[in-house]
C-alpha cells in the first residue's frame, strides 16, 4: 500500500512546541515532522493535544515555546493568513463550504477572479474544471453542480480541491472518514495516494486505527500533551498501536456479553416507508442485534421510524408480543424503546445546558409533577446516573460543552436508565469518541445486556458490529439481506454481501 514511502525532503518540522492555557499544559515539548509526499498520522485520545497542535499549524493558537521550520527555514505562524501563505490548509470535520454555490464557485470562494469589477464566472468554471482534472477528482468533474447536491464525501473533495488550488503543500485532514461509507473511504484513499505521489504532505488524524495502518507512512502518537513517539507504520500492528495510544494494554477490547437470549422484546413486521422497503426483525432480551450496512443505506431511518421520529407507511411494531402504536417518540418511550441518536450534539443533548439538566430532562414529570420541583429527587436521579455510568464532570452544573465526547455519550445513555428501558437502539454509539471511551461504552453495553436489556446496535464500524453483537442483520437499501450469527461472519463476508447486493440493485 505504502508504495511511495521512500523518504521525501523535510517539509515541516516542529520542535519543542509547548502551549499552555492558564494552568493547563495542552502541549508539552512536542516535536513532529512531515516530509514531502508523505502521509503522517497523528493519533491520540481526545484531549491528548491533537487539535491544539493543528490549531497552532493553522495559525489559530501561537505556541508558548518551540520552533516551526518550513523547508528548513524558520517560519512564524501568527495568524490564519500566515498559515495560508505557507501553504498549510486544514480540512475540517465540519465542512466549510457554501452549499448554495457551485463546485467551481466554492473552489474560488474568497479569491474570485475579477474582470472590470465583476466576477469572471467563465474563468472560474474553466480553471476549476482544469484543476479538478489535473488532480484526478473525476467525482466532482461537473464543476457547475451545486454543493448542496453532493454527498459528504464529494464535498470533502471540493474542500481538498480548494486547498490545492491555492498551492497548498500541506493538507491536514481531521477525521476525514467519520461520515463516509466504506466505498467512499476507498475513493478518498485513492485520492490521498495520488496527492502523496504529487509531493503533497498530509497530516492524517483519525480514531480509526485500521485505516491509519492502511494509509499512513508514519505515525506519531500524543498522550496527555506529550509526544509518545514517531514510528514507521510498517513497524507497528493495531494492538500495539492501541496500547501506545492508551498507555496500557486493552485485552478484551470489545467485551461482548454472553448470549443468554430471553423472550422476544421487540419485533418489527414488514415495516415500510420511503426509505425502508419491508423490514422484519426481532430482538430478544439479553441479546445484541447488530445492523451492518453502508452509510446512507437507511439504517438511521429504520431507527428513527421505530422510535417514532419519522412516520412509516405500513408494518407493525410489537413489544413483548403485543402491537404498539408509535406516532411519536413519546409513544416509543412509553413502550420502553429508547433511541440514542447518531449525532449526539444535534439530536441528543442540549449542549448549552448542564449535565444535571440533560440527565434529568426525560424525567421532569417525576421530579417536577406540579410547580414545586423536588430538587432532592432530581439530585438523587442525577447522582445515580453520574455514579453508575462514571461520567467524569467537575460539577453536575457544568455545561455539556465542557465534557469529552465519551462522557457526553455516557450522559446520553445514562439519562434513560432511571426506569430500565426494554429495548435500547444505539445509532453509532462510538462515533467521535476515543479508544479509551470506546472501550468504556462497550463495557456499558455489555452490562446493560447482561442485566437483560435488548439492544439494537447500528454502526459503520464492522469490527464493532461483529464483535459486540450476537446476531448481525446485513442491511442494504432499506432491506435486510441476511441475518446470521456474528461468529459465522467476517468483515470480508459482510462487505461481499453488502457490495454484491448494491451491484445487483443497480442492474
Amino acid at each position: 500500500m505504502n508504495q511511495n514511502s521512500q523518504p521525501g525532503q523535510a517539509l515541516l518540522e516542529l520542535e519543542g512546541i509547548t502551549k499552555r492555557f492558564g494552568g493547563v499544559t495542552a502541549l508539552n515539548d512536542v516535536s513532529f515532522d512531515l516530509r514531502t509526499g508523505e502521509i503522517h498520522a497523528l493519533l491520540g485520545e481526545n484531549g491528548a493535544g491533537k487539535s491544539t497542535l493543528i490549531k497552532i499549524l493553522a495559525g489559530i493558537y501561537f505556541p508558548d515555546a518551540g520552533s516551526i521550520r518550513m523547508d528548513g527555514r524558520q517560519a512564524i505562524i501568527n495568524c490564519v493568513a500566515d498559515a495560508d501563505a505557507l501553504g498549510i490548509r486544514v480540512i475540517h470535520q465540519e465542512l466549510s463550504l457554501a452549499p448554495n454555490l457551485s463546485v467551481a464557485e466554492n473552489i474560488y470562494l474568497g479569491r474570485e477572479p475579477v474582470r472590470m469589477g465583476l466576477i469572471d464566472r467563465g474563468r472560474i468554471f474553466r480553471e476549476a474544471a482544469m484543476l479538478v482534472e489535473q488532480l484526478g477528482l473525476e467525482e466532482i468533474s461537473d464543476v457547475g453542480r451545486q454543493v448542496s447536491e453532493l454527498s459528504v464525501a464529494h464535498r470533502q473533495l471540493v474542500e481538498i480541491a480548494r486547498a490545492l488550488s491555492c498551492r497548498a503543500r500541506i493538507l491536514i485532514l481531521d477525521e476525514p472518514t467519520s461520515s463516509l461509507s466504506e466505498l467512499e473511504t476507498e475513493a478518498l484513499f485513492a485520492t490521498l495516494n495520488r496527492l502523496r505521489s504529487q509531493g503533497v504532505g498530509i497530516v492524517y488524524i483519525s480514531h480509526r486505527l485500521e485505516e491509519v495502518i492502511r494509509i499512513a507512512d508514519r505515525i506519531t502518537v500524543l498522550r496527555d500533551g506529550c509526544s509518545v513517539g514517531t514510528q514507521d507504520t510498517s513497524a507497528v500492528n493495531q494492538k500495539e498501536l492501541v496500547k501506545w495510544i492508551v498507555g496500557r494494554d486493552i485485552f478484551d477490547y470489545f467485551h461482548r456479553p454472553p448470549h443468554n437470549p430471553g423472550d422476544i422484546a421487540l419485533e418489527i413486521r414488514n415495516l415500510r416507508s420511503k426509505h425502508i422497503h419491508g423490514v422484519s426483525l426481532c430482538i430478544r432480551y439479553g441479546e445484541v442485534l447488530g445492523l451492518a450496512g453502508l452509510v446512507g443505506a437507511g439504517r438511521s431511518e429504520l431507527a428513527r421510524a421505530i422510535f417514532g421520529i419519522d412516520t412509516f407507511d405500513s408494518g407493525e411494531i410489537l413489544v413483548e408480543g403485543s402491537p404498539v402504536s408509535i406516532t411519536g417518540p413519546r409513544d416509543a418511550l412509553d413502550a420502553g424503546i429508547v433511541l440514542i441518536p447518531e449525532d449526539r450534539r444535534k439530536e441528543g443533548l442540549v449542549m448549552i445546558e448542564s449535565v444535571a439538566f440533560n440527565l434529568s430532562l426525560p424525567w421532569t414529570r417525576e421530579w417536577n409533577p406540579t410547580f414545586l420541583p423536588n430538587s432532592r429527587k432530581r439530585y438523587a436521579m442525577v447522582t445515580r446516573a453520574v455514579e453508575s455510568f462514571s461520567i467524569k464532570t467537575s460539577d453536575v452544573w457544568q455545561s455539556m460543552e465542557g465534557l469529552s465526547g465519551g462522557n457526553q455519550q455516557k450522559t446520553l445513555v445514562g439519562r434513560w436508565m432511571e426506569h430500565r428501558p426494554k429495548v435500547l437502539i444505539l445509532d453509532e454509539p462510538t462515533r467521535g469518541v476515543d479508544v479509551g471511551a470506546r472501550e468504556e461504552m462497550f463495557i456499558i453495553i455489555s452490562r446493560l445486556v447482561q442485566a437483560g436489556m435488548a439492544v439494537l446496535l447500528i454502526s459503520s464500524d464492522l469490527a464493532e458490529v461483529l464483535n459486540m453483537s450476537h446476531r448481525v442483520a446485513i442491511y442494504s437499501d432499506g432491506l435486510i439481506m441476511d441475518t446470521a450469527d456474528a461468529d459465522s461472519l467476517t468483515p470480508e463476508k459482510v462487505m461481499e454481501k453488502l457490495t454484491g447486493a448494491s451491484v445487483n440493485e443497480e442492474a
Partner: protein
Amino acid sequence: MKKHSWKAAPALRKIGPLIIAMAALEVVFGIRVPGFSQMDNQIDLLQQISVNAIIAFGMTFTIMTGGIDLSVGAVLALVGTATVSILAAGSPSTAPSVKLLLALGGGMGIAALFGLFNGIPAAKTRMPTFVITLSTMMVARGMAYRFNSAQPIPIPDNATTFLALGNSRLLGFIPVPVLVMLGVFAFATILLHRTRFGQHIYAIGGNREAAKFTGINVVRTQVWVYLLCAVMAGIAGMIHTSQLYSAEPGSGQGFELNAIAAAVVGGTSFTGGIGTMYGTLIGAVIIGILDKGLNQAGVHFSLQYIVKGLVVLTAVYMDVRRNKS
C-alpha cells in the same frame, strides 16, 4: 468519586451584574435629578414600565424557544379597539358588569386567536417566526383600523371598572397596572422556572431536535408559548387602552421592539435556551429608569433614543462575552 454539590442553577448567577447596573442607574439619576428617588416618582416609574414589562414577559417565552413575536404591538391595539367597541356597543340597558365580561372575554379571545395564528405555523411549519409574526402584525394592525373607521374609540364613562384597570390605585397607593404586572410576573416566573413546561422551553430553545428525541411534545409547547405571548400582549393592551381613556387603533407601534429590548437587556439570548424572567423584569426596569431619568433630566428625546440604543447594545455585548467565557 467526587461528591457533587447541588448549587443553584447557573441561570440564577447571571442576575448579579444586572442588579448592579440597575442600582447604579438608580444612584446616578438620584444624584443628578432632584426628586428622582422619591417614593412617588419610583411608583410612577413602575407604573410606566408595567405595559412594556407585561409584553416583555410574553416575549421572553418566544425568544427563549428561539423565536420572536413581532405582532404584540398590533395585537395590543386590536385588543384595545375590540374591547372598547364591545363596551361602547349595545343598548344602555345592558348591565355594565355583563358588558365588561363580554368585552374582556372578547378582547382576550382575539388575543388568543392571534396566539394560535402565530403559534401553529411557528410550531408546525419551517417558516421563520420573524416572517410569520411580521405578517400577523400587519393583519392585526389592519383589523384594528377596521373598527370605527380607524378613528379612536372613547371609553364610555360608565365603564368605571375598565377605567380603573389603568388608572386607579390600590389603597390610593399602588397603581393597578403595577399589581397586574407583578401578578403576570409571578405567573410567568413560576411557569418558566418551576414547571415542566418551563424546563421544556429551555430544552427546545437549547436544541429543538434533541428535545424531540427526548420525547418532549415540541409542537404543543411552542403553540402554548405563542398563545401565552399574545395573551400577555392582550392584558397589556387593556391596561394601555384604559390609561389612554380611549382605544387608539394606531397605538402600540414599536412596543414589540421595546419588549425585545427589555428581554435582551435582561439576558435573554436570541439563540434560544438562555434567559430568565427576573432578568426580563430588571431589563424592563433598566429601560424604564433610562426613559424616566433622561426625561426628568431634561435630555432631548432624540438623545434619549441614542442613549437607549447604545445601552441595549452594550448590555447584549457584555452578555455575549460572558456566555463565551
